[in-house]
């Protein structure tokens, strides 16, 4: 048992995975000598050497495309895209191949790879460094999309992602890298991909979120409880593809009210899908419209103003009160 932040926990998982499975290789821009611009790959080059920890040329399609080749050859590449705002350069490779090879070859070839990328706002970064476009990947059949919300589940989910026989997009909420510490057990844990967690039990309203937004959601739940005596059922999706319909549906059947919270743009975002699944499964239990507290359909404002764009406890609390008064 040791206390560590999320950056350290992800780093720990990479060390563990490379120790336990020599097929695991790490590649990307500045992941070697520099140990990653966020230091997520700290110590890897020193311990595992240049063959397995690869500083690549500056080319995202190259990084993802060669990872796909390596995976088909039998390795387990874990590639890093320096910021999610640049993974679009490689989207054609992920969509056309990583997500399709198993189906295309009727199972003869598979692409067991992980594409890691820091995503989301809140660190006063430049334009293109604060995007949250995870829905693009959730909308891409054949991919899994995993998003941790804390040190412990980050480590467990990264292990699960690396062990997964298919391509996984592992998005790291960069605002949480060093936001807080948590006990992380010594023995390796994994969490099943596609299973959400109820992180707080309550029967008044369901608050559904993931990633950095889960933290403000928990803040909001606390305020709702302490200041308004409202008990929220807080769900951490952990993976947005596959999306855990069952957990969402059971919660809403209990509460009859729900809010979905995320950073990304609203239109066709994860929130829309959550609302759609609630509508399909428990419409008659709904006592109020499901609210979406999300990023807006704009470019996230430059950092002097970015906080206004990001969901915060206030917006969630207010939405919850309105939903309960509806």
């Amino acid at each position, binding site marked *: 048992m040791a206390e560590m932040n999320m950056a350290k926990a992800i780093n720990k998982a990479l060390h563990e995975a490379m120790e336990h499975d020599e097929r695991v*290789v790490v590649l990307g821009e500045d992941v070697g000598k520099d140990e990653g611009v966020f230091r997520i790959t700290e110590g890897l080059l020193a311990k595992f050497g240049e*063959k*397995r920890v*690869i500083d*690549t*040329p500056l*080319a995202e*399609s*190259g990084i*993802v*495309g*060669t*990872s*796909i*080749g*390596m*995976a*088909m*050859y*039998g*390795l387990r*590449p874990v590639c890093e895209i320096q910021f999610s705002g640049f993974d679009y350069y490689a989207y*054609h*490779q992920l969509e*056309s*191949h990583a997500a399709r090879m*198993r*189906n*295309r*070859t*009727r*199972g*003869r*070839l*598979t692409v067991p790879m992980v594409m890691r990328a820091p995503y989301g706002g809140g660190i006063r970064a430049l334009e293109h460094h604060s995007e949250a476009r995870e829905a693009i990947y959730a909308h891409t*059949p*054949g991919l*899994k999309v995993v998003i941790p919300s804390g040190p412990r589940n980050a480590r467990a989910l990264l292990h699960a992602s690396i062990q*997964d*026989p*298919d391509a996984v997009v592992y998005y790291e909420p960069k605002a949480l890298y060093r936001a807080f510490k948590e006990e992380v057990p010594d023995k390796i844990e994994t969490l099943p991909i*596609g299973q959400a967690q109820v992180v707080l039990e309550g029967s008044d309203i369901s608050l559904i979120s993931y990633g950095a937004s889960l933290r403000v959601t928990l803040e909001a739940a606390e305020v709702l409880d302490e200041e308004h005596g409202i008990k929220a059922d807080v769900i951490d999706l952990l993976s947005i593809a*596959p*999306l855990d*319909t*069952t957990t969402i549906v059971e919660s809403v059947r209990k509460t009859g009210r729900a809010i979905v919270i995320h950073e990304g743009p609203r239109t066709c975002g994860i929130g829309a899908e959550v609302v759609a699944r609630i509508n399909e499964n428990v419409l008659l239990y709904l006592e109020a419209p499901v609210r979406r507290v999300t990023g807006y359909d704009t470019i996230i404002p430059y950092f002097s103003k970015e906080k206004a764009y990001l969901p915060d406890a206030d917006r969630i609390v207010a939405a919850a009160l309105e939903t309960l008064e509806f």
Partner: protein
Amino acid sequence: MPRKPIDLPYKIEYLSVLDENGDVDKELEPKLSADDLKKMYWYMRLARQMDERMLKLQRQGRIGTFPQTSGHEAISMGSIYAIDSSDWNVPAYRELAGMLYRGWPIETILLYWGGFEEGNRIPDGVNDLPYCVPVASQLLHAAGIGMAMNIKGDKKVVVTYFGDGASSEGDFHEALNFASVFSAPVIFVCENNQYAISVPLSRQMKAETVAQRAISYGIPGVRVDGNDVLAVYVAASEAVARARKGQGPSLIEGLTYRVTPHTTADDPKKYRSEEEVEQWLKRDCLIRFRKYLVKKGVCSESDIKKVDEEIDAKVKEGVQRFEELAKSEELLDPLASFDYMYAQTPEFLQRQKEELADWLNKEKKSSGSAGKAQAETARRGG
């Protein structure tokens, strides 16, 4: 301090071994046994006769649109013959001869162009990737496979294919750069048939050759006569030897011409002259290779005829097997896609599968007019 030339250690060469009359350059002639030569010829002919047969099948609507490969046999065969079965092959879509040689059954290939995923079921023991449609994207897979060979310490090589048009894609640049930086054992073979659908080479690049692009990556580049299977074999063997020695990738440009339409949906009259085509038909790779085999005494004219008959039979059998498979319930089951998206089908997808299953019986034919329109559009498109 003034203006001084930087001397770069590159010379881009043109290589040709076998001319149109079947005469060979004795010094460059590769040491290939009669069996080797016969085998190469056999698969080149198989590809040619199959291509011709596929055209009929397409016209009859028994398979869909496909890219014809006649004229590309020398580049495909000359390069694939330079690697071992334990090496890897990353095709594009015009390497029919090479795929047949690697062990892809005729019916499997027909299934692919007939609209069945099973056409990509790589046969046991064949180290090939399937056809790749998104142009140039496969080059990065080859680079990654080569990098993986180095990482694992395997003394293997990988050969990959792409067209002149593909060399304009960013993925081409990234693939050659990655392969060169990491000394990956990759042989990049450009099938320069001088057209990308309707776009001629001059509109594709200002550079005189694709081969000279090797200079951008500090690797060897050569242009060979793409209708000369021996020249391709020589260049490929040299590249393979370098790759096995850990000297990294090479770029081989086979200069040929797409004597057929781009695909069965294409109408070349819109963008080029018949004369141009006629000229290149004279340089056909099979005609000159056959002359060579006869002059060399590897086979007689009658052997050659026998080969054609043998192959006709083989193709017929393959087409029959395809026709049966194409009727089989298993292959026509659209539910299969749900089973192959992930190693384990997630619950939500399982539900979607059941949803579709419920509908499949009820499904009605779409209205005649729409049907016609689709067929019509299919003829024009893609």
